[in-house]
């Protein structure tokens, strides 16, 4: 009945939008942050990178964003390297773990920043800022300063800033990690609605198994020391997913599976370390 919402169910019609081809990362100080990763992401997917601290989630995300060069391997977005993303007619934006707003600028000014940097003309920018703030429900706070907002509201501003350029791809690095569970659940819900409404592709980083199951069409499970991908788990449940999904047996089943996958990886690490 909800099959038409399961956009991930027909990915073969679309070319893979993100191709990560044996990309690995060693930091200049010698830290092997990431063993070669192979991952393909289709347009319209909501992929979550799940794993313990230090497994290289942020590293992978920053490599996709072009903020960090891969030591080895390649990353293609719409079949082009990230520097050439403009030539594909697509846009990407990045939402950080903290709201990272400019404290000297009002809410509207913060949301407007990407447009100004890209030289969008002023009246067009005004309209888009208003639209974007309306999407996250913060129209009333147009002229507020970031410090006058709660943590959750600041995060919404950050998301509005991510949406204002009309991106097709959004990368989010633990965007709700610093928020309380109630606010986080609410923002998860809102994010899913935006994802559906704007036909976005999202790559989302989280520590939380429950957040991963709730949001994703697919969960990429990662392990630490060395950072690597250990499993890809499709979450084969229809959208829209309401709060009742969180307490369903299917939900519990996926959570159990991910939990065990993560545990197995960390136990294997302990065994390996014990053997040394």
């Amino acid at each position, binding site marked *: 009945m909800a099959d038409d919402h399961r956009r991930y169910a027909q990915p073969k019609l679309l070319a893979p939008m993100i191709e990560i081809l044996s990309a690995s990362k060693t930091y200049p100080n010698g830290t092997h942050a990431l063993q070669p990763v192979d991952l393909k992401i289709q347009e319209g997917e909501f992929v979550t990178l799940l794993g313990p601290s230090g497994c290289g989630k942020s590293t992978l995300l920053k490599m996709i964003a072009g903020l960090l060069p891969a030591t080895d391997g390649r990353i293609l977005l719409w079949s082009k390297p990230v520097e050439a993303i403009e030539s594909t007619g697509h846009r990407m934006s990045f939402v*950080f773990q903290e709201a990272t707003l400019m404290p000297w600028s009002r809410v509207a000014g913060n949301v407007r920043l990407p447009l100004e940097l890209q030289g969008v003309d002023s009246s067009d920018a005004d309209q888009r800022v208003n639209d974007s703030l309306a999407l996250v429900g913060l129209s009333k706070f147009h002229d507020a300063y970031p410090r006058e907002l709660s943590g959750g509201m600041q995060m919404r501003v950050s998301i509005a800033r991510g949406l204002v350029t009309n991106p097709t791809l959004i990368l989010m690095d633990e965007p709700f990690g610093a928020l309380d569970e109630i606010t986080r659940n609410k923002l998860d819900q809102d994010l899913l609605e935006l994802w559906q409404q704007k036909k976005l592709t999202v790559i989302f980083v989280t520590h939380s198994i429950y957040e991963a199951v709730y949001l994703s069409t697919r969960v990429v499970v990662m392990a630490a020391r060395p950072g690597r991908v250990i499993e890809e788990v499709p979450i084969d449940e229809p959208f829209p997913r309401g709060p009742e999904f969180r307490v369903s047996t299917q939900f519990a089943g996926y959570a159990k599976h991910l939990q065990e996958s993560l545990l197995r990886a960390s136990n294997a690490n302990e065994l390996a370390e014990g053997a040394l």
Partner: protein
Amino acid sequence: MKAQRIVLPVVVAIVLIGLWHGLVKAFEIPVYLVPSPGKVLETLIKDWSLLGGSLYNTLKITFFAFFCAVVLGVAIAFLFVQSKFIEAAFFPYAVLLQVTPIVAIAPLIIIWVKNPTASLVICATLVALFPIISNTTLGLRSVNPGLQQLFKMNRATRWQTLTRLRIPSALPYFFGGLRISSGLALIGAVVAEFVAGTGGTGVGLAYQILQSGYQLNIPRMFAALLLITLAGVLLFALMVALSKWALSWHESELSNDH
């Protein structure tokens, strides 16, 4: 809360002045050791033509020096953040400037620079310079790494990053530097005049203090001292008001109002 910040220091001042007056009267301390507050005020009014002119001269040196320190300090800070190489090469000399007592180099500067006003301004500038350099450099470097990445992802130019990110990020540090530096400029102006002695035509407050010392005119000495202190406090208050106005968005400024 706000009233307390004004009322409390005023109460303390009244108590201290009262105590000063009381002690001077009670122990009959002669006026050539410690004059009473009333006597100091009386001298201040009586000698105003002399002291007012000197205050003007000292303030003139102070403002010139402060202005030079700000312009130079900001320019040097910008140079420093352009390249680690330049900073590594020259920062130790900025520190050298800071740790060398001005009294020790002032005689040299006074010999080298013929114009007495200019030599005083140079001395005071040297004293006031370092906080501006170090604070502004720190500020220009203290950019939130997330915002920096955001600018990078949106293909911001170097100029955009400078004007829209680095400079606004540096402002709170810069104003912190201003507060320290304004006081130092005054100290520098006074100390340099002590060393320069009776060189110039337009004498400042330091000269008045020296002269009053020779003539044992202690009330006038106190009056001059009072003027220096008042000038310092006023300068500081001016800087606080300025940074409050400029940084109305900044939390450390705002928290004072709550």
